[in-house]
């Protein structure tokens, strides 16, 4: 497979976007879905072949996977040494990501054929999906940090377009703006981080950047680690700021507030955002720069604790939400938190690299079961026309396929063997156990909570009360909605057996892993306990959940209100930032900046108003001015003459 065909992987969705975006609504309305799906199918086949070639034929040099620069094109050449390039870099995580992204996106494309059928802006929807896929593929294949930033922003803008797809709904508009502003705000940190790192290493290219900043004897590293600001080295600042950008996209605390609201978009889009694109971008970014992170303990500690806190925080909130998509949103945040702290506890290379491998493994398995959960939820919403749990219940007879696949996904995310989530979560817990006991216990508790809230969701949708949804003709949905569910369910079972430990590791060397059954006992027991608890509370309609909620009192209400994070943000923005910064700035703008300009203008107008009477149009007045003037000059000259 030639290098140019690799470029087709992101370029095919881009072409789809251009074609559907320009001509879709007018001419291609009927075929938009087919065009988008076929182009993505080709793209995913190419990425599968590319990944196969990389992993099994060309990628290994001396038994170590090396990054390969497949394409390099000098884009903006400022000076001979400074240029911004566009390139494609192949390495294990990029290979894994292109397969996951194209595959999940393909499933979403197929699912949307049925789900979005009859929408007025059907072609526009597919154009946006293609743009989203293109951005994410470009992001994972980027060969330098500036290129990744550009695609990063493209991901931001395409998520904005998709979340705001129902733009006639005020809540969707608000949600899309919120997502865009919050992630954009975090991206400011990312940009400053890029500038710091690139300035210290004097390069934008990933390979060179990593090589220069992980060599303790190189002058670049000495400079970066030596320069400090408020007692923290420039390198740590750069990395923490880059992580800030990653936290924004990955919805880590405290930038998670956009994620639940992003549910306003069409449900398949949520599957795409949560499983393959957008939220994993932050994890990918940290993984991409992992060697540098691993060299800087302080930055890695930040990653660990932010990840662990987000995992627990989101899991607690997820237990109290009643909107099924919001539960899934918080569960995503929680799982991304797992991936983050797993990176945080890892070291570069060898046995210590377990956390890195585990994080990538979890990203891989999570992509399948989370997209399955969202697509399943989409199918449920398609039938019930509501997002609220109280409108559901007893759906297992109405939608058998959705029921079974959803159950598989729930078992996978809860970490029950032999489903995919079990394997990746075990690795993460093992990595945490070996390096940070506190994080380990947080993770363990969270995994129990995960099982509880996922099965709360499952029982509320499919069991609980008797179904009162009337069969409205379209039943469980079209074939194009069922097929992706089945494929993803199969993968949610099998993905755990994927030999990722030998393929995707921090240093390119295969890693020996083994499942320690004794160790696995605790998390699995906790997960089972969570499931049993959920089944006793939610399997049939009763008042126990209500009683527990009343007993917990304040804690339950706080969690139900998402710990008042939105209110806190509103308070900070509207009361503090608006009053202390916005209003003074507006005052200065209105009174000082505009005021000085208005003063000039007013003075000029005033003066001209006063003297314009001189130009009266009366010839004899002019003549007398002239006469007086000449007389004046004459007197002056006579006076000077003497």
């Amino acid at each position, binding site marked *: 497979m030639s290098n140019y065909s690799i470029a087709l992987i992101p370029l095919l969705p881009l072409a789809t976007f251009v074609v559907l975006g320009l001509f879709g609504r007018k001419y291609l309305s009927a075929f938009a879905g087919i065009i988008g799906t076929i182009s993505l199918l080709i793209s995913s086949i190419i990425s599968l072949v590319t990944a196969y070639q990389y992993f099994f034929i060309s990628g290994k040099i001396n038994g170590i996977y090396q990054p390969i620069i497949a394409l390099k094109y000098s884009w903006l050449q400022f000076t001979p040494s400074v240029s911004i390039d566009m390139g494609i870099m192949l390495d294990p995580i990029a290979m894994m990501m292109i397969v996951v992204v194209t595959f999940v996106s393909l499933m979403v494309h197929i699912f949307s054929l049925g789900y979005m059928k009859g929408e007025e802006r059907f072609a526009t929807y597919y154009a946006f999906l293609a743009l989203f896929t293109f951005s994410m593929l470009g992001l994972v294949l980027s060969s330098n940090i500036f290129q990744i930033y550009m695609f990063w922003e493209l991901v931001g803008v395409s998520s904005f377009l998709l979340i705001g797809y129902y733009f006639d709904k005020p809540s969707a508009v608000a949600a899309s703006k919120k997502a865009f502003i919050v992630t954009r705000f975090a991206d400011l940190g990312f940009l400053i981080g890029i500038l710091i790192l690139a300035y210290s290493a004097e390069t934008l290219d990933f390979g060179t950047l990593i090589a220069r900043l992980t060599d303790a004897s190189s002058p670049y590293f000495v400079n970066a680690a030596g320069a400090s600001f408020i007692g923290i080295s420039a390198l740590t600042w750069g990395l923490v700021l880059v992580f800030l950008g990653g936290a924004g996209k990955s919805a880590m605390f405290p930038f998670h507030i956009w994620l639940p609201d992003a549910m306003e978009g069409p449900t398949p889009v949520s599957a795409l955002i949560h499983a393959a694109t957008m939220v994993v971008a932050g994890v990918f970014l940290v993984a991409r720069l992992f060697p540098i992170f691993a060299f800087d303990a302080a930055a890695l500690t930040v990653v660990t604790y932010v990840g662990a806190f987000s995992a627990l925080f989101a899991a607690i909130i997820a237990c109290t939400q009643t909107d099924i998509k919001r539960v899934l949103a918080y569960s995503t945040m929680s799982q991304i938190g797992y991936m983050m702290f797993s990176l945080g506890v890892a070291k570069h290379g060898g046995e210590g690299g377990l956390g890195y491998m585990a994080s990538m493994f979890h990203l891989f398995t999570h992509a399948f079961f989370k997209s399955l959960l969202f697509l399943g939820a989409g199918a449920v919403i398609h039938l019930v026309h509501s997002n609220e749990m109280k409108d559901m219940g007893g759906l297992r007879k109405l939608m058998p396929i959705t029921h079974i696949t959803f159950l598989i996904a729930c078992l996978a995310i809860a970490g029950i063997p032999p489903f995919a989530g079990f394997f990746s979560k075990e690795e993460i817990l093992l990595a945490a156990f070996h390096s940070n006991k506190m994080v380990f216990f947080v993770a363990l508790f969270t995994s129990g909570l995960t099982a509880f809230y996922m099965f709360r969701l499952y029982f509320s949708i499919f069991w609980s009360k008797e179904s009162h949804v009337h069969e409205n003709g379209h039943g469980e949905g079209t074939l194009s909605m069922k097929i992706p569910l089945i494929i993803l369910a199969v993968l949610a079972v099998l993905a755990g057996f994927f030999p990722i430990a030998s393929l995707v590791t921090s240093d390119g060397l295969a890693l020996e892993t083994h499942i320690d059954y004794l160790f696995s006992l605790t998390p699995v027991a906790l997960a089972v306990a969570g499931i049993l608890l959920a089944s006793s509370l939610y399997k049939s309609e009763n008042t126990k959940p209500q009683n527990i909620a009343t007993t917990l009192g304040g804690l339950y209400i706080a969690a139900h209100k998402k710990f008042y994070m939105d209110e806190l943000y509103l308070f900070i923005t509207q009361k503090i930032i608006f009053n202390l910064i916005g209003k003074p700035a507006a005052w200065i703008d209105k009174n000082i900046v505009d005021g000085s300009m208005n003063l000039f203008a007013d003075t000029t107008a005033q003066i001209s108003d006063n003297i314009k*009477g001189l130009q*009266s*149009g*009366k*010839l*004899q007045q002019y*003549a007398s001015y002239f*006469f007086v003037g000449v007389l004046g000059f004459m007197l002056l000259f006579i006076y000077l003459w003497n």
Partner: protein
Amino acid sequence: MNEIGLTHILFLSAILFFIGVYGFLTRRNMVTMLMSIELILNSVNINFVAFNKFLHAGKLDGTFFTIFIITIAAAEAAVAIAIIIHLYRSSKSIDVNDADLMKF
């Protein structure tokens, strides 16, 4: 009988000049204003002739200039009267205060 001196002639020309200026500034009738300009020009002519006689008796420069000025005054009168006629046609008036369109 004594020859009339330079001072007298200059005095005459000054009186003529100021009469012209006064007429130009006070009269509203454009034809009268034109006549005032002629007075100013003629006062200048008198100056030229007088200075030529008393300061450069052997030369003719001042006289030449006088002839030039008379010629140009004739041309100027033709142009000015043409303008006045046009103004009269458009505004039915030769009052200079009625021709004040060119103002702020």
